[in-house]
């Protein structure tokens, strides 16, 4: 094993060997917030949805906004890992594992929110037993469960070889539970030609399959709005708009997680400025795409000014939601775009700041999609109003803390960088004349 490989293994596996006090403190704090969120949910279970701010006019609020947000950031894994793997972009290798973590965890957390929003969780059984094929909510269930299964498989496949490394390097000194855990999950990986061939085929299938599934998932999520004849939601471009927004917030999430884990686990040698720059460029491209879709969403109905659309556009641009809307435009699009455009801000710190602003603003954007459209009166009555309660805010914060907590736990159990892929990419870079192996998914030699 050469020095690079030895250093790589030591750096990536060290966090799995020991745990510092800072990590414990952070996890404890996250656990506390998640626990408080869980307590708030038990209050809702006990007292009913009356403890939330949702009523008959505004029936979707923070929970559905959060659902859309988390499903959105789950697109991180698919974009970075699958698309860049299929296109054989070598720079992605240190980033793919984190991206795949984010996908699985974000999907798992996000998928809880429709059930939380339902009030009575037992009613989910009714959806399964009596759901209708024509319902976008049934499509949602099918799409999200299919995507979650595919993402879990897609996370596991490239991890097999790294789990074998963990088994061989950590196993002898680890406790029996950990040793057996790695032994079991590594599936007896020895790197035989047959094993490599099977894994290569499996990863190839999943890399290609997961891309259209990911696109369909957020398109279907958009359909729960777009299939309703409600001003603001009744739009033909919602599918593309949501997918673009999902990729946008997904890239921002990867940048943030990358920055945190890079600092926490000393991964500076592997997560370099180049990775932040490339993801920053992608994020910058999506600033323009999202700005374009926002322009469409207001120009087209604004030109016609149907009654309901007129009320909504006024509410967003100059009414009760105007401060939030303009904050989203400025801090979510204009400022991140400028940060990425200007050379003196286009560095790791600047890109991370831009990513944080993007993520906060994209959450606000989801809220602005979900709530204001419900204020448009469907019958002759005053527009409804919505003020989230402490229960909703606590559940949402608890879920976010839960998301970070699970990522933190994953980072302590599984290597956060794909060791074998980075090694392979390094070998390719050092031997450019050598014939490169077939790698739809960076298969082995």
């Amino acid at each position, binding site marked *: 094993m050469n020095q690079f490989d030895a250093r790589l293994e030591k750096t990536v596996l060290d966090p799995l060997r020991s745990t510092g006090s800072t990590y414990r403190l952070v996890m404890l704090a996250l656990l506390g917030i998640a626990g408080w969120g869980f307590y708030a949910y038990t209050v809702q279970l006990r007292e009913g949805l009356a403890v939330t701010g949702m009523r008959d006019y505004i029936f979707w609020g923070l929970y559905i906004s959060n659902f859309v947000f988390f499903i959105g950031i789950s697109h991180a894994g698919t974009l970075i890992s699958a698309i860049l793997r299929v296109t054989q972009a070598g720079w992605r290798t240190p980033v793919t594992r984190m991206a795949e973590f984010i996908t699985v965890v974000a999907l798992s957390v996000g998928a809880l929110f429709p059930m939380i929003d339902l009030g009575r969780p037992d009613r989910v059984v009714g959806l399964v037993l009596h759901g209708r*094929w024509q319902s976008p909510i049934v499509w949602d269930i099918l799409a999200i469960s299919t995507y979650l299964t595919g993402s879990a*498989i897609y996370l596991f496949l490239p991890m097999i070889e790294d789990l074998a490394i963990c088994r061989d390097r950590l196993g002898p000194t680890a406790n029996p539970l950990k040793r057996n855990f790695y032994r079991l999950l590594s599936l*007896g990986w020895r790197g035989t030609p047959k094993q490599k061939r*099977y894994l290569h085929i*499996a990863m190839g299938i999943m890399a290609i399959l997961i891309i259209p599934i990911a696109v369909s998932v957020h398109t279907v999520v958009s359909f729960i709005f777009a299939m309703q004849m409600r001003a603001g939601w009744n739009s033909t471009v919602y599918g593309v708009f949501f997918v673009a927004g999902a990729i946008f917030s997904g890239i921002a999430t990867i940048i943030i997680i990358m920055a945190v884990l890079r600092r926490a686990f000393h991964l500076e040698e592997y997560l370099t400025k180049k990775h932040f720059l490339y993801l920053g460029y992608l994020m910058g491209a999506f600033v323009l795409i999202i700005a374009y879709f926002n322009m469409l969403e207001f120009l087209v109905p604004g030109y016609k000014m149907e009654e309901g659309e007129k009320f909504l556009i006024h509410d967003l641009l100059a009414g009760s939601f105007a401060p939030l809307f303009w904050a989203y435009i400025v801090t979510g699009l204009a400022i991140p775009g400028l940060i990425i455009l200007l050379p003196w801000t286009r560095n790791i710190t600047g890109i991370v700041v831009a990513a944080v602003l993007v993520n906060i603003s994209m959450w606000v954007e989801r809220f602005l999609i979900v709530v204001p459209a419900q204020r448009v009166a469907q019958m002759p009555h005053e527009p409804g109003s919505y003020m989230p309660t402490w229960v909703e805010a606590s559940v949402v914060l608890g879920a976010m803390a839960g998301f970070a907590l699970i990522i933190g736990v994953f980072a302590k159990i599984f290597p956060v960088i794909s060791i074998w892929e980075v090694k392979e990419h390094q070998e390719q870079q050092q031997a450019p004349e050598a014939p490169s192996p077939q790698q739809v998914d960076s298969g082995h030699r």
Partner: protein
Amino acid sequence: MEILKRSSLALAIFIAVGTLLGGAAVALAEGDPIGTQLSVDAPAAATFGEPARLVALLRDEAGKPVEKATVRFYSPVSFLAGAGGLMRLDEGITDADGVATIHYAPTQTTEIRIVAKFDGDTRYAASQADMLLPVNGNHQLYEAEAGIRVPFVGKWWLVAVLSLIWGLYFLVVNLVLRVALARD
């Protein structure tokens, strides 16, 4: 003069007594409405979602049909614990034979109690009757119709796509198991 005075007095007394007796007669007549008897009839069983013909027959105590009386039909329902009452189904006006008819399509698949009520009026006393109506069958009452029927386009495409995706998942899982088996 004296005779005239006595005659006027007698006349006044006669009118007063007559008024009193007449009023008493009217009062007596109003205080005793005629009793009625209501019966309700329906088919032996109704079909879920299909209209059933409910017939009420209103007769007085002498057996004569009561015409132009409003008969209301109800069914007892209950919702959450403690909340319930008579749900009004419809109402009919009795014809010359004392028959009031409504059509009611049950949307429950259990035995339904039908209560018919005549609330009475100035002439007739109130009465009510009830019966049990068994309901057969169970099917989806509302079926959405496709706005446009496109040949070969339907829910089976969704089933086919999902089957393909999950089939590929199982293929991948099979490959993963082969990785485990190919360790030597």
